[in-house]
C-alpha cells in the first residue's frame, strides 16, 4: 500500500468512527510524516479537544503549532505538558511562545496558565446539548427526576402554591454504565438551570484541612448561583462509609463537612438542589442518607428491552449501517448495561473499519460485525445485582431499598441471577 492509500484509508476510517481518538492520532501522525502539517495540526487539535493527546507528544505538537502561527493551540499544548509534569522541552516551548506572542503584539502570558479559581465546574447548558431524549428508556426515573428537579425550576409558583419546597438532595444509584452520569447531564439540559459539577479531583488536597475548605467553597459557589443544581458524581469517593476508614484521615473530615453542607441547605431552603450519583450505595456513609440530606433515593436499573433498543439506535445513528436487526439484538442482551451495548457497537464498528482498511469499497457496519462482537460480550451488571440483592436482603430496615428489592424479586431476575 502506498503512503497515499494509507492516508486515504485512515481518513475513511476516522470518518466512520469519529470518536476513535487513537485512530485519529495515528492519522495525525501519518499526516505529519507526510509533510501535511496544517492538516496534521487540525487532527492533533481535535485529539487534544477530546483530551486524548498523549502527554509526551504535547511539546512537539505545541512547537509545530507555534511555528504554524496557531498560538492558542500551542499554549494549550504547553498547559497540558506542564500539568502532566513533562519537563523536557516545556521551557523551550514557552520561550518560543513568549517571543511569538510579543511579535504578534499580544499581551505576554502571565506565569503559567491562568489558575482556575473555581472549585465547582460550571457546566454551561449549551455545552450539555444532551437532554432526556438522548437517554434511552428509564421512563420512571426520568419522571421522578422531572418531578423533583426539573419542575421546581420551571414552575416555582406551583410548588409554592402547594407548600412544597424546591431544593434538597436526590441520590441516583444503580449498576455501572446504566446512565446515571448521562441522566445527570441530561437533567442539566432539561431544566435550563445552572448546573455545577463538583468532583473529587477538584476537592482533594493533601494539605491538612484544605479538602474540606475546598468542598465548602464548592458549595458556596453553588449557593451563589442558586437556584441551581449541584452534581456530585461518584459521591462515595467524597463520602465513603466511615466504617471502612482505617484512621481519622482526610476522608472522615470530608464526610463531616459534606454532612454540614447538606444540613445547611436543608435549613436555608435556598433553592440549591444537590444531585448525587453512585454505583456503590453500600459504601456511602449512612449518615448521608438520613432525612433532610438525600431524602429521595432513585434506583437506575439496567435498561429493559425497549430501552436497549433506544440505546442501540442512539449508538448506531450517524454510522453507516446495513441490515442490522436492532430489535433482535435488544432481545438478545438482557441485563446488558448501556455501556455494555455501546461497547458491542464500538467493537462491531472497529471490525468494519478493519475491513474498510483492506478493501477499496465502503464497508457499512452490518449484522455479521455485530454477531462477531456479541461473541465475547457479556452483561456486566449481574455481579452488581447480586451484591445489591445481598445488601437489600440484610440491610433494608428503613425500606429505602424496597424499589430494588421488588425489581430483584421478579421471576426472570431471579432466574438470571442464578449462578
Amino acid at each position: 500500500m502506498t503512503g497515499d492509500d494509507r492516508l486515504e484509508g485512515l481518513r475513511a476510517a476516522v470518518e466512520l468512527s469519529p470518536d476513535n481518538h487513537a485512530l485519529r492520532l495515528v492519522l495525525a501522525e501519518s499526516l505529519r510524516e507526510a509533510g501535511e502539517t496544517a492538516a496534521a495540526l487540525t487532527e492533533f487539535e481535535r485529539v487534544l479537544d477530546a483530551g486524548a493527546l498523549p502527554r509526551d507528544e504535547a511539546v512537539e505538537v505545541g512547537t509545530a503549532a507555534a511555528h504554524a502561527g496557531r498560538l492558542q493551540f500551542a499554549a494549550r499544548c504547553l498547559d497540558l505538558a506542564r500539568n502532566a509534569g513533562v519537563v523536557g522541552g516545556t521551557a523551550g516551548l514557552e520561550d518560543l511562545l513568549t517571543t511569538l506572542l510579543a511579535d504578534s503584539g499580544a499581551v505576554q502570558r502571565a506565569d503559567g496558565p491562568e489558575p482556575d479559581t473555581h472549585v465547582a465546574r460550571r457546566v454551561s447548558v449549551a455545552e450539555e446539548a444532551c437532554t432526556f431524549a438522548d437517554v434511552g428508556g428509564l421512563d420512571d426515573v426520568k419522571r421522578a427526576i422531572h418531578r423533583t428537579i426539573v419542575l421546581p425550576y420551571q414552575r416555582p409558583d406551583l410548588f409554592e402554591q402547594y407548600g412544597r419546597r424546591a431544593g434538597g438532595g436526590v441520590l441516583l444509584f444503580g449498576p455501572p454504565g446504566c446512565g446515571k452520569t448521562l441522566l445527570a447531564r441530561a437533567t442539566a439540559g432539561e431544566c435550563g438551570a445552572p448546573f455545577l459539577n463538583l468532583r473529587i479531583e477538584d476537592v482533594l488536597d493533601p494539605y491538612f484541612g484544605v479538602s474540606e475548605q475546598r468542598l465548602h467553597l464548592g458549595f458556596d459557589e453553588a449557593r451563589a448561583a442558586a437556584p441551581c443544581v449541584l452534581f456530585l458524581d461518584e459521591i462515595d469517593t467524597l463520602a465513603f462509609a466511615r466504617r471502612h476508614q482505617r484512621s481519622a484521615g482526610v476522608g472522615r473530615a470530608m464526610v463531616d463537612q459534606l454532612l454540614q453542607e447538606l444540613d445547611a441547605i436543608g435549613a436555608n431552603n435556598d433553592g440549591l438542589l444537590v444531585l448525587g450519583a453512585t454505583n456503590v450505595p453500600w459504601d456511602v456513609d449512612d449518615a448521608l442518607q438520613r432525612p433532610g440530606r438525600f431524602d429521595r433515593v432513585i434506583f437506575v436499573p439496567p435498561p429493559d428491552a425497549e430501552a436497549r433498543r433506544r440505546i442501540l439506535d442512539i449508538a448506531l445513528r450517524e454510522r453507516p449501517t446495513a441490515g442490522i436487526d436492532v430489535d433482535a439484538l435488544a432481545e438478545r442482551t438482557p441485563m446488558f448495561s448501556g455501556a455494555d451495548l455501546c461497547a458491542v457497537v464500538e467493537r462491531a464498528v472497529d471490525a468494519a473499519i478493519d475491513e474498510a482498511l483492506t478493501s477499496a469499497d465502503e464497508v457499512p457496519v452490518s449484522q455479521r460485525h455485530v454477531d462477531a462482537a456479541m461473541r465475547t460480550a457479556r452483561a456486566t451488571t449481574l455481579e452488581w445485582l447480586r451484591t445489591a440483592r445481598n445488601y437489600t436482603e440484610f440491610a433494608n430496615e428503613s425500606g429505602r431499598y424496597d424499589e430494588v428489592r421488588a425489581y430483584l424479586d421478579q421471576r426472570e431476575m431471579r432466574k438470571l441471577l442464578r449462578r
Partner: protein
Amino acid sequence: MSSLELVEHLLGVGRPQDALRELERLGPDEAGTIVALYLRGYAHLNTGQADAAVHDAQAGLQAAPDDIALLYLLSVAQAERGDLAAAEAAILSALGHAADDADLLAQYARILMRAGELEKAGRVLATARASAPGSQDVLRCHIDLAYLRGDTAEAEGLTHLLLAEDAESARGHQMLGAIALERGDLPAAEQRLGEAVRLEPVHDEVADTARAARILQRPYYWPVRFFNRFGAAPTWVAAICLIVGLRAAGLELAAGLFGTTWLIVCAWSWAAGSRLEHQLR
C-alpha cells in the same frame, strides 16, 4: 493536587479500577517513581491481578531493594498468587530490616497459617503482640489462628475483643456467625452473618450462608437441624443401636415402628436438604 494523591484516595475508597485508570494517565517520569509503582501494585492486587502486582513490586524493588513497603506488597501479592515460598522469602527480607514490625510479623503469620504451620505462626504472633499489643491486624490473625486450631472458645473471646474496638468489623461478625452455626444456634448465626453481609455485601458465600441460616429456622427443616445439631454419623449409630437393642429386648413391634419413623425422617431430611439447595440458588 498531584494525581498520585488522587490515586491513593481512590484506592482508599475501594475504587482500584479508577485508580488504575488514573495511573495510566501519568506521564512517564511520574509513572516510574517508587510511589507510583507501589500504588499501582495495590491497585492491581485489589482488582485481582496478582501477577501484575508482583511485577510492579519487583520493578520498584529494582530501584529500592530495601523498601519495606514494597517487600510487604510483594509478599502479599505472591501469597495471593499461591506462591507461598516466594511470599515467605519476601516477608523475611522485609523482617531483616525491621524485625519487630507488627504488620510484617502478622503477614508472616498469615503465610505460615496458610502453609499449615500453626505452631510456628503462634510463636510469630506472640512476638507481634509483644511489639504492638493494640494492633487490630495482629488480633485478627490471632482469631484466625485460634479458629484454625479448633479452639472455638478462644476465637470467640478474641472476636468479642475485636468487635469492642471496631463494632463494624465484617470479619468479626462473620467469625461469630460461623461459630454460632457450628453450635447449631441458627438465630444468632443469621443475625451475625446478616450483619457481616450488610457491612460487606460483595461476598456471595457469606450471604448464602446467612440465607441458609435464615431458611433452616423454618419448621419444615427440623430434620436437617436435627442432623446438623448432633452430626449425621452419631445419630445413625444411635438409631441403629436403638433398633438392635429393642429387638434384642424382644420388642419387635416397637423396633419396627421406630425403624419406619427413622426412615421417614431420613427421607424428609434428604428432601429438605435438596429443597434448601434449590432455594439458595
